């Protein structure tokens, strides 16, 4: 067998090994209900901000505590706790991808990814009646 072939085989083996270990890292998209079943493990939950319930961020009390309510895909609404400052334009987000885990009835998330109506832009026509 040629050395090049041996090396190629080794490389392929390494690549497969790397990919297999990587797949173990991959997470899944869950709902609150399925995340609760596996409490303590980290998941991604896609949802919408529940605008009926108030969000709270009071830096005077704690600058690293932001809580709000989110509907997941099934419509279930839960309190979400984020340890950090309230992200900019949070209210504008069309949907939210949360990374974190269920703790009791609360979802504790370490990362929030917001999907805005159009990334970098706002796509509604802004019309004013004021004359310049």
């Amino acid at each position, binding site marked *: 067998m040629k050395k090049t072939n041996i090396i*190629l085989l080794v490389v392929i083996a390494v690549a497969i090994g790397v990919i297999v270990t990587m797949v173990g890292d991959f997470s899944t998209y869950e709902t609150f209900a399925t995340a609760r079943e596996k409490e303590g493990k980290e998941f991604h939950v896609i949802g919408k901000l529940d605008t009926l319930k108030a969000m709270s961020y009071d830096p005077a009390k704690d600058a690293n505590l932001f809580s709000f309510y989110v509907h997941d895909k099934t419509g279930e609404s839960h309190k979400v706790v984020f340890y950090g400052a309230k992200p900019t334009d949070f209210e504008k987000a069309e949907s939210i991808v949360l990374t974190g885990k269920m703790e009791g009835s609360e979802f504790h998330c370490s990362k929030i990814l917001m999907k805005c109506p159009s990334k970098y832009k706002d796509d509604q026509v802004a*019309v004013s009646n004021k004359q310049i």
Partner: protein
Amino acid sequence: MKFVGEHLLPGQLGHFFAILAFVASMVATVAYYNVVKGKEPLIRDSWKRLARWSFIIQSAAVIGVFTCLYFILYNHYFEYKYAWRNTSRDLPIQYLLSSLWSDQEGSFLLWSIWNSILGIFLIRTSKNWEAPVMTIFSLAQLIMASMLLGIFILGYKVGSNPFMLLREAPENQLAPIFQTADYMQHIHDGNGLNVTLQNYWMVIHPPVLFLGFASMIIPFAFAFAGLWTKDYTGWVKPVQPWGLFAIMMLGTGIMMGAAWAYESLNFGGYWAWDPVENASLVPWLTMVAGVHTLLAYKATGHSLKSTFFFFFISYVLILYSSFLTKSGVLGDTSVHSFTDMGMSAQLLISMLVFTVPAIALLIVRRKEIPSVKKEENSYSREFWLFVGSLILLIAAIQITFTTSIPVWNKLLSLTGLKSAFNMNDIAPPSDSIFHYNKIQIWIAIVLGVLTAIVQFMRYKDTPRGEITKKLLVPTIVTILLTALVAWKGTITYDKYGAGFLTAIYLMLFASIYAIVGNFFYIFSGLKGKLKNAGASVAHIGFGMVLLGVLISSAKMEVISLDRMKMLGDGIFTKESKQNPRENIMLPKDVPVEMGDYHVTYTGDSVAQGDPKTYYVVHYEKKDKQTGKALERFTLYPDAFVNKKENALSSNPASRHYLTKDIFTYVSAAPNRDEAAQADTTPYVTHEMKQGDSVFFSKGFIVLKGLNTKPESRNYIPQNGDLAVGAELEVYTQTDDHFKLQPIYFIRDSSYQYSVEDTLAPLGLNVRFSKIMPAENKIELKVKEAAGFNDYIVMKALIFPYINVLWLGIIITVIGTAMSIYQKVRRR
């Protein structure tokens, strides 16, 4: 309907140019193809003339499209959707260019311009390779031009026209406002450019990055031309400087993006393994691999097939990255990708148009590609160049595999596997940065060591003992330096355990080894001839990049830790581990200890004509023993404040040192207006005569007299008004002196009004509520706003030795440029 106030000419002209570019590049493609396939020299010559002219015409047309679009943006013609979406009247002129390429059409346009320029350059320089290479170029331009067409073919939308009018946009066609002829009367301003893109890096980063993208097609085109015309080896020589050029430009472009991310800090540093970043890094890795296998081929005849493969795959990966960022497929996983414009299929086709023929041809003709029968010697340079390239390939595979998670999801559901196995969508790893780091760090270690050693090997075979002899000194020096850095630098990054810390130390060694090894090679291998040292210089730079990345990430430190709250929670509770507490509240004028500094927020300021609010933050470093101030400076982090939603869009301010950068970043600030409205302190009523005074917490108010012809900002007299102003003087404890004039008036002889006057610095509101002529008194209502607590929530970070990274990049670029110069001169 005839619409009023529109400027249609620039748009029509622009669209004409877009179509012209499409047609001309089609002609160029066909004509160049015929030059390659033609037999008769005379016919070939006439095809060639046609081809050249059409390519030049398409280049001019592309420039025409650009000019028209810029003209529209410059003149604020908001009837065009592009101008309306991406600009506004208050946008500073230097950012017009960034808004031009902030949207998809603009980025295609930029790419297309670079393709044209590179194409014209190649027409002039590539001699007998012109025809096949330019066939590929013209085809690329044909596809680029199709992206800007915006016409419907068989009910399928081809391209997106940047000159679309706002009223023609599908989402707006039914809107009532566009049913009126004078709708332009109501559209005064555009949407504006996203504030994070209003940064000088965003003016320069996209052009450089797209020049990198565009130049990646040159190695592809040459390699393809070689396979196509069955001249399997002739293309190697002209392509070498272009391969280096592509690495240099793409690398610079990527790192300029990193510099932008670093400075705007919205992504937490210069590199976040975001899919969009990864997608452009991967082709760079494979192109670097290709350039190295090309070297091996030129010296020994080995590795030609892998060079073909790497050059092909690099451009394919560029197209793949363009597909990922522009098709909207990354929506759930990336913070900065575009949304879908309904062009996914077109993007996919454009990728396959290049991929399928290239790979197919490579497979079909693989036997005809010359190769050396004899095996590489394990003590030869070419062998290790090949191994290094494979390592780079593994890096590329790993990054691509995870970055493509959304694509896997699409594929799984398209093929029906997802429903067959009842699978959920796969999500990216929850700790994605560590996911990449823990694999890439090993690759970086191997690459660093290879970079240090391989130069010392000879092609074909190296005498045993020579390597050991030559490497002895650099290795000892490296071990000493590593020990020194490890001892002085105290790297104790134990967040991910001892195993990862070991890897960090190994990488420290590997990156220093790369620097030292190549430094020594300039003297021992090249006898100090700097002229030929391009590669060594570039490798030194690369080693510094590795070192800078390692140290700045491992020793990055958040100093704005909220320690008070940490104690409050208890240090060892589950919660304290989850909550990194990286934000801290700074009440106004109260110094807070942060790392080595005492930090005080002293207020904010706004300037006329500048939409940003600046927050004033003083830093002071004191000597621990004597309490003497060692260092004082002030940072002004700023933010665009959206009053309505109280949304902040912050920009950090930083203090740069040679060995570290200190960043300060405002993550939240109170909403003044809301606070004022929410204030429910009652007014206190006072009856006063002239000369009377009233006390309040910070001083007293004196009624000086009454003014029967009062005027103020908030009151404009009308005929028939009966108005009286109370002339008040306010004296404070600090001997400040202010004037106030609340007004009371009767309009239309029946309605009573009271115009309040306020003194913002003291939080004083005074109303003139009643006149009592009988007693010769007036009634004042006075309110002191509840002490408004001004504060900011901020985050402060220290990035140590980040300059090693930036310097490393500059040195890499210089080294690569030296190599290019050397290769071009030798030709």
